[in-house]
């Protein structure tokens, strides 16, 4: 049984179908990349799976280990082991990096998780998770927090945005560490080179999965830019 199974998921805003009967599954200890251009529904899918407010599916079901979770609230899903790294993590006044990494488990030693994302614990643990951090630093701390949570399902929404190319190695380390811990990883990206670290991949277009296979196959399909035309709504990908 897949850890995450999405069946016929739909999400509609007004008359716009953002997700249109999307189906997808991810096994434990599997990294699944979801490739797609801007506006194809990648982040919406992430928010629907995580349970964000205002992202209750209008159709279909989301199963975690066979249990339907689409009616559960975000923290209830988090307690089942689902977490997500936002594309642009928010800042917090008055919360130190050490506190942020140990919100769920005060006994946890946060230092190793910072080291995994290339940050010196001695320099960062007492700093605030506020505007004093650069975008790249904040993003790394978010990735460290995902590791510290030891999730069953980790969703990474564009983890490479805002981080320089050199740091891509640390992102990959985090994803692989999640996998090594047995987590299923849903890796959302629009960059083929990031998708290539996955075990499997899908391409999303028009709110539907239009291609599933090995990362290389899906990346090749994606690179062909066949779905670029979807943006103006002319593509038939994913339509019955």
């Amino acid at each position: 049984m897949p850890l995450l199974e999405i069946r016929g998921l739909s999400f509609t805003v007004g008359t716009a179908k953002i997700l249109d009967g999307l189906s997808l599954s991810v096994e434990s200890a599997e990294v699944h990349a979801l490739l797609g251009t801007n506006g194809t529904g990648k982040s919406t899918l992430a928010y629907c799976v995580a349970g964000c407010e205002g992202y209750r599916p209008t159709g279909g079901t989301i199963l975690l280990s066979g249990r339907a979770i689409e009616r559960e609230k975000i923290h209830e899903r988090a307690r089942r082991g689902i977490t997500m790294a936002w594309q642009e993590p928010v800042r917090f006044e008055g919360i130190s990096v050490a506190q942020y990494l140990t919100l769920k488990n005060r006994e946890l030693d946060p230092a190793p998780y910072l080291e995994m994302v290339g940050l010196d614990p001695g320099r960062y643990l007492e700093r605030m998770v506020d505007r004093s951090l650069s975008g790249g630093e904040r993003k790394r701390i978010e990735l460290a927090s995902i590791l510290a949570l030891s999730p069953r399902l980790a969703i990474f929404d564009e983890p490479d945005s805002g981080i320089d190319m050199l740091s891509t190695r640390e992102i990959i380390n985090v994803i692989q560490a999640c996998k090594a811990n047995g987590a299923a990883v849903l890796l959302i990206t629009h960059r083929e080179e990031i998708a290539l670290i996955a075990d499997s991949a899908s391409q999303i277009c028009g709110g539907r999965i239009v291609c599933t296979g090995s990362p290389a196959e899906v990346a090749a399909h994606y690179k062909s830019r066949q779905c670029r035309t979807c943006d103006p709504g002319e593509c038939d990908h994913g339509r019955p």
Partner: protein
Amino acid sequence: MDALEQLMQSLNAIGGSEAVLADPATAHLVADGRAILSRRAVAGLEMEARETAEGISARVVVRQGVRLANPVHLCFGVLHEQGEQRIRMEVRIEKDAAASFVAHCLFPGAVKVLHAMDATVVVEEGAAMHYAETHFHGPHGGVEALPRAVVSVGRGGRYLSEFTLTSGRVGRLAIDYAVTAGKQAVTELTARVFGHGDDAIRITEKVVLAGEEARGLIKTRVAIENAATAEITGITEGNAAGARGHVDCMEIVRDQAVASAIPVVRVTNPLAKVTHEAAIGSVDKRQLETLMLHGLSPEEAVEVIVKGMLR
């Protein structure tokens, strides 16, 4: 238990330490209502304090070039349910001197108490003063606190002030601070207040950047819930070349509470620059969801965000 012991018990309860009163190297002044309970000056610091018909009158001078190793501790309070305390305070930090002040204002059982502080502060050229004031007003909301200060900071001087009232009820609070900063002087005013019930909070802080390259920051963090109200006014004037000022106000509002923020920026010199930002609203949804993604309940997440903002 005498008044001093009771006051120290309250001080310990909010994280202070009565041990500093026994330290001969630490200056202090302790008063309950109109009675001075304890005082100590140290080398380089002069303190005159007397009881008046209205309350307490005190004058503190840190002599030129003296840099106090330990903070000066001030502890004022009213232990009875009803009472009045009016404090007149003059502080002068002489040229190139430096001192920190830690003030606790304690009204643990107040039902109807007036606490009025009227301070005049002079920070001379090259001098530095850090003033941290923490209030505890108890659970009844029966305190009317009126802290007022007029501060002058000389050339190259530094004046940093922090006001905190985040435990217990506020009652009625009206802060009125005005600072004039001279050439290359730096001033920062920070206030953190958490209001509940029908607490009424009014904070007016003004920084006049009168000297060239003076720097000023007014930072206000207020959380209110139930039927509390808050009206925050931050005024900064840039009146000299190279002066830089910023007004930063954030208020979190819950339940039926009502908040307003009035940032006033005024520039009379074209080479000065003053900016402002104000955010009022409920707890940020993305912050809330981020913490809930860590497994915190909505209530726990709100508590973490509010406490963090007020820290």
